[in-house]
């Protein structure tokens, strides 16, 4: 390790370590939280700030050390922010089905049962969208 490590390199290293730290905390959450729905929170969060910090580090490196502009990090974060909620949503929906069919249980969690809705309504994974509602595409 040479003595002439620049301030920019320190800054980039700090941001990358911060990002890695958040990813590690997210993974630790996956291990220690009580049941599936709680565990889902750990990794979805690590991907936002942990990866965000690493992308900032990459951007700073090219900007301060290499002296070139890069905009790819911006694009990566946009795609990440658009796709991360969808994968979380898919896992959660599968979990709803497994709960209803008794293949999974929430026994480790104190969140209780999935709330039901008034007036014979159900959640959209279990029931087709009603006519004239936002999910009804018959008129399109």
């Amino acid at each position, binding site marked *: 390790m040479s003595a002439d490590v620049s301030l920019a390199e320190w800054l980039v290293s700090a941001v990358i370590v911060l990002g890695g730290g958040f990813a590690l905390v997210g993974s630790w959450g996956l291990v220690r939280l009580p049941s599936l729905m709680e565990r889902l929170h750990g990794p979805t*969060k690590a991907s936002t700030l942990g990866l*965000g910090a690493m992308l900032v580090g990459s951007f700073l490196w090219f900007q301060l050390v290499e002296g070139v502009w890069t*905009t790819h990090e*911006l694009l990566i974060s946009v795609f990440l922010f658009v796709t991360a909620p969808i994968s979380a*949503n898919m896992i959660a929906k599968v979990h709803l089905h497994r709960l209803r069919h008794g293949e999974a249980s929430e026994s480790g969690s104190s969140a209780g*049962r999935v709330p039901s809705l008034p007036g014979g309504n159900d959640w959209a994974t279990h029931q087709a969208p009603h006519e004239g509602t936002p999910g009804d595409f018959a008129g399109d």
Partner: protein
Amino acid sequence: MNRLLPHPGLSVLLVVMWVVMVNDLTFGTLFLGLLVGVLVPMFTAPWWPGRPRVRFLPAIAYLAVVLGDIVVANFQVAAIILFKPNRDLKPAWLTIPLELTSPEVITVFAGTISLTPGTVSTDVSACGKFLLVHALHAPDPATEIAKVKSRYEARLKGIFA
């Protein structure tokens, strides 16, 4: 105007994305980007029926609020994971009544809830009037629902007016 640029917002977005992806602002890049920005909305227009209008200034303000919340709430969730024992954790299901009606706007609302740490949107009701959300730590579900509604839903109603 409507035949050539059926979706001006999408056109601008595509041009910006193209330039960002090529990472170079020259005439050639911009020209190809404009070509993509004009042609793609033209051919996909039939799949965008009755889309909501977007107001740009409130949309940018909303983006800033959400980005700030993501950073703050990430630290909160990290603190919960590291220091809160499971017996003190109060996870809860929240049923959020929706005032938004357009599917696009409800999708943005649900995506925001999933991105801001501590809450994951799980499902929408078949009647489209409720959103099912799981909260990692919500000792008082009613205040959590009120917070999400006033912070995000009210702003979204101002953007897609």
